[in-house]
């Protein structure tokens, strides 16, 4: 029996490589065609076209900045005036991260294999988290504004519910990888479920959970600014009011931009730093 000729192997390999390249190329062509067609469609349903609008992109920012530069003397006062709104936005983000995080802890522990209090119900809690994650914050926020009136509370409830679903999934993925031996040890000395989880699991998962929660805080800060713009409460609402006024209040717009920008960058930096310390120990 002769071994297959090297030529044969090489041909087969080249054939395979050619076919792969063909499929890859085809996929790429289809993808590019879809992007192009989608873009044409989106453009046709847009009020203004892409080419017409492109030179205008910088027109609005420069108009705003020019006016703000003329009234630059107002800026420190405006910054101080809008600072309480920024604090409210930060509070919305922090409270909803906290509340959502606490809910997520409960949901994660209840839906993790090996830890669940009621193992039969894990599927139910998982579906619950999926549903919480799937509802965009704006839906809940707008409906709650109708009932509760404006203010930060609808935003807090909406963001916390979403956070509970999103963090719950990440938390339970972490908890799934936790070492179960401490839990068994605690169970063998007669610890209850709460003690097993509190002493056996939480110390293991705390760094990762905290790191995910910090990341969520960054996301929630942006979400609370957007919800303020669409609904009410916080710096987003101030921004909307200033924008609706239009020319004449662009110094306010710039002051709010600045506050928001500084807050987002600062929080991102801080949480980046804290997370790298948490994960590296």
């Amino acid at each position, binding site marked *: 029996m002769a071994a297959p000729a090297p030529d044969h192997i090489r041909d087969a390999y080249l054939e395979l490589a050619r076919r792969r390249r063909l499929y890859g190329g085809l996929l790429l062509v289809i993808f590019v065609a879809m992007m192009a067609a989608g873009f044409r469609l989106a453009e046709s349903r847009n009020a203004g076209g892409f080419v017409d609008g492109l030179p205008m992109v910088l027109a609005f920012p420069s108009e705003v900045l020019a006016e703000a530069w003329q009234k630059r003397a107002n800026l420190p006062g405006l910054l101080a005036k809008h600072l309480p709104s920024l604090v409210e936005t930060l509070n919305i983000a922090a409270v909803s991260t906290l509340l959502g995080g606490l809910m997520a802890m409960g949901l994660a522990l209840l839906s993790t294999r090996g830890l669940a209090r009621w193992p039969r119900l894990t599927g139910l809690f998982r579906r619950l988290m999926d549903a919480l994650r799937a509802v965009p914050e704006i839906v809940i926020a707008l409906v709650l504004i109708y009932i509760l009136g404006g203010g930060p509370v609808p935003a807090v409830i909406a963001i916390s519910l979403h956070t509970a679903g999103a963090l719950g999934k990440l938390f339970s993925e972490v908890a799934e990888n936790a070492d179960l031996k401490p839990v068994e040890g605690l169970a063998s000395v007669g610890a209850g479920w709460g003690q097993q989880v509190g002493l056996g699991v939480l110390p293991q998962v705390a760094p990762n959970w905290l790191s995910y929660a910090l990341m969520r805080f960054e996301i929630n800060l942006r979400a609370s600014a957007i919800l303020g*713009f669409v609904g009410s409460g916080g710096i987003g609402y101030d921004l909307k009011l200033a924008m609706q006024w239009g020319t004449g209040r662009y110094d306010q717009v710039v002051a709010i931009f600045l506050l928001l920008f500084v807050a987002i960058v600062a929080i991102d930096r801080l949480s980046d730093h804290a997370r790298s310390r948490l994960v590296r120990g």
Partner: protein
Amino acid sequence: MTTTATLSPALTDTVLTRFARRRLAAFAVPLAILAYLAYAAIAFDIAGLAGRARMDNAAVLLSDFWQHKTHVTRDNRTGALRVAIDGEAKGTYPSDRLPGWIATQGDTTRIDLGRGHVVTYDAEGARYDVPGYGLIDIRQQDGGLRLTAPEPLPDWINASDSRVSVTTEAGRFAYTRSKVETFRYQPGWALFFFTLDSPFHYMSWPEIAASALWGPRVDPDLPNIAAMARDFWTNAMWRHGDVLWALFETVLMAFLGTFGAALVALPLGFMAARNMMPLGALRFGLRRIFDFIRGVDGLIWTIVLARAFGPGPMTGALAILLTDTGSFGKMFSEALENIDEKQVEGIRSTGAGAVQRARFGVIPQVTPVLLSQVLYFLESNTRGATVIGAIVGGGIGLLLTQAIQTQKDWEDVAYYMVLIVLMVMAMDSFSGWLRRRLIRG
């Protein structure tokens, strides 16, 4: 023995102080959280919330979510009867095809509200027979209303000289000089499939199935099944066609934005990675640009772009594209810095140039990481596109905010919410499937 004797007190001390610190933290952290929440409760004025909350709005909203009301109105001057769902013109029944619970005979209209409640309109006025209470009789005379009902009047009857209104568990009834109106509440979303001008509205499900398969053509130009699809698609009450278009627009925004950002960010990510780009200044500049884009945030980009391009899905897509370019640029360059250099060296040893090294040494390594990040963003952008649509005026976000602002089309709001959740879940499972196929396969 001497060593342990000298060491162990120090060791116990360390252990004990650490334990004490831990115990303190175990109390201090929850306390700090509680204190912060208490501060937030005061700052958010939770106490005042109870006063501001409109529980009647909540009741309206919840009942509208799952039931509809039919207005039965008689104009007292002309005597004309109008039966309309939610009182809307497009939900008005043709006068020869009234629902079965309304019977007309000459001037007399008999409305059966169910559970024994019967309202009768006739030439003299109107009567409402409430079981367990008695007959409420209203007659119009001398330019005023005369009410006869068992005394004392309960608080669910509100009577004055010019207006009598009655609210019971079966419906609502109101009589004024100009008109008499009865609302009947029924569960379900009215006219969801076919509106009243469609012949299919008057058929039961088996009849519809039969008519679709072998029934005579309702519209001579179209087979019945196509006519049904047309009537459903152009349903004036629910506007299924427009709603599905809006959903598609939202998904389109997320798709174009996410993948557009990935395409833009890939070369930029190469240029910002330490091991790919020798020019430090360019690298530094790009990183600061990414930071700036991320820091300015999608909200502000959306506003700026909406000014330039006007409302619509393209503006939303561009806003997502711009915001995500910052995030992707940062993530891609970090992923590129973390690659295994050995493979690149192997390719280099065969005499490959920079582009070939990138194509065969780097891309295969980073593709799974980048792709899973992009798909993860696609999921979250599908949700985000709803919000962005509300700001730029495109997609389902626009329809949703419009329906909420009217403050009465809550059944539409419920419908959109269900569709949004289904859309997000579908995108989640689609991107999960794609990730498994592309990365493991």
